């Protein structure tokens, strides 16, 4: 593997274009969380032509529903959830300026096409490495949909959040390119 790239959020076209599939990155800055239920609500608002509760321009959404925080911890264990469930919701958000998604697992053709069109990046975090990843989350607060509990939209401040660029803005996809190299 090549050396680890340190990157900061929010992202713009230039920063996204510097990221290539296979890059190991450490992310520092603000990110938002969101999974099934929150995405469903965001898309409802978009359909109704209403304003979203968060400004997603240049932002990164982490697909996660964290465990509750133990006293003295900013956040509970927080590994990625499987991304394909958010596939139907991702293109409208990318069209509105979302620049990055963090999750695990395959993305649909439609999402990848939208990423290419809008210059966005998909980061993979290691599923199940939830206690380790939580160490990089320095601050957590709920910013929308508090009633959803673990599924509420949280704002995280992260420092050196470990991830891998799995699909870059050109549509290069590690899930397609890497396994054949180890096939027998």
């Amino acid at each position, binding site marked *: *593997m090549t050396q680890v790239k340190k990157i900061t959020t929010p992202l713009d076209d230039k920063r996204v274009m510097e990221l290539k599939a*296979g890059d*190991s990155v450490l992310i520092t800055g603000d990110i938002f969380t969101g999974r099934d*239920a929150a995405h469903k609500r965001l898309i409802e608002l978009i359909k109704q032509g209403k304003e979203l509760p968060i400004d997603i321009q240049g932002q990164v959404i982490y697909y*996660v*529903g*964290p*465990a*509750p*925080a*133990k006293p003295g*911890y900013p956040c*509970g*264990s*927080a*590994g990625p*959830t*499987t991304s*394909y469930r958010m596939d139907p919701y991702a293109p409208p958000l990318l069209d509105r300026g979302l620049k990055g998604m963090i999750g*695990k*697992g*395959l993305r649909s053709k439609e999402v990848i096409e939208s990423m290419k069109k809008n210059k966005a990046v998909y980061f*993979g975090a*290691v*599923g*199940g*490495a*939830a*206690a*380790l*990843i*939580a*160490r990089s989350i320095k601050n957590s607060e709920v910013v929308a949909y508090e009633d959803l*509990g*673990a599924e509420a939209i949280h704002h995280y401040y992260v420092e050196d959040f*470990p991830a*891998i660029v*799995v699909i870059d803005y050109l549509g290069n996809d*590690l*899930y397609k*390119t*890497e*396994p*054949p*190299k*180890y*096939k*027998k």
Partner: protein
Amino acid sequence: MRQINTNQIKDKVKELFLKANYQIDQDIMQRLEEALKEETSPIGKSVLNMIIENNRIASKEEIAICQDTGLSVLFIELGQEVQIVDGGFIEAINQGVKEAYQEGYLRKSVVDDPVFERKNTKTNTPAIIYTDIVPGDKIKFMVMPKGFGSENMSALAMMKPADGPEGIVNFIVETVKKAGPNPCPPTIIGVGVGGTADQAMVIAKKAIARRMGEHNKNDKYASMEKEALKKINNSGIGPAGLGGRITTLAVNIDYLPTHIAGMPVAVNVCCHAARHAEGIL
């Protein structure tokens, strides 16, 4: 009759779910260490390193290994000479689950209605309880918090007897290949063959908890396990699905007598965070 109080049951269930969610069994940790040595992909190695480090942190700090602390599944062997006193058996188990998840900072992941309301029950109950009545005066518990990233990749095939062992191995391998990176590889694959459709899936789930390195006592089934594992690992999917030689840590097959006309095959997929804990009252 030996009397066991529902409070003891509640406390035992609570203790076991906390333990299972914080600590990965030593045999799985050892297998992960071996996998790290066997893995040739640099990304795969770094993923395995993160998993091992994660499990150490969770155990040391007593925090959840994975945020998906799962549905609460229990396999119980209830001795027929046990008399449960001071309340209901099922209520006591659910109370134990509730206390573990509420007091142990574990995520509550149960929704009441699967289609419409999908309202969180906020207690991680009801638990999923399988009880066998056995001889003796003890209660044996095996608890398994089961995450859904992997559960969603599970599959059932009502195969023809003529499909034979090759058909079964192919179905297992294809199920894992189709799942790709989604179930958090390296996975553990539980397989149930025979019985009815429902029974096959139950024994598949139970097979996930088998000790690492053990094979089915029937050599023919053991060789199916080895063949399926080899074929899966030749897929190249690798840790986290990012390419590599270690896609699955173990394939565990169990079987039951079945109907003359059928051969049900159930594949229950489990992520590397294969959490379970056992205890006896």
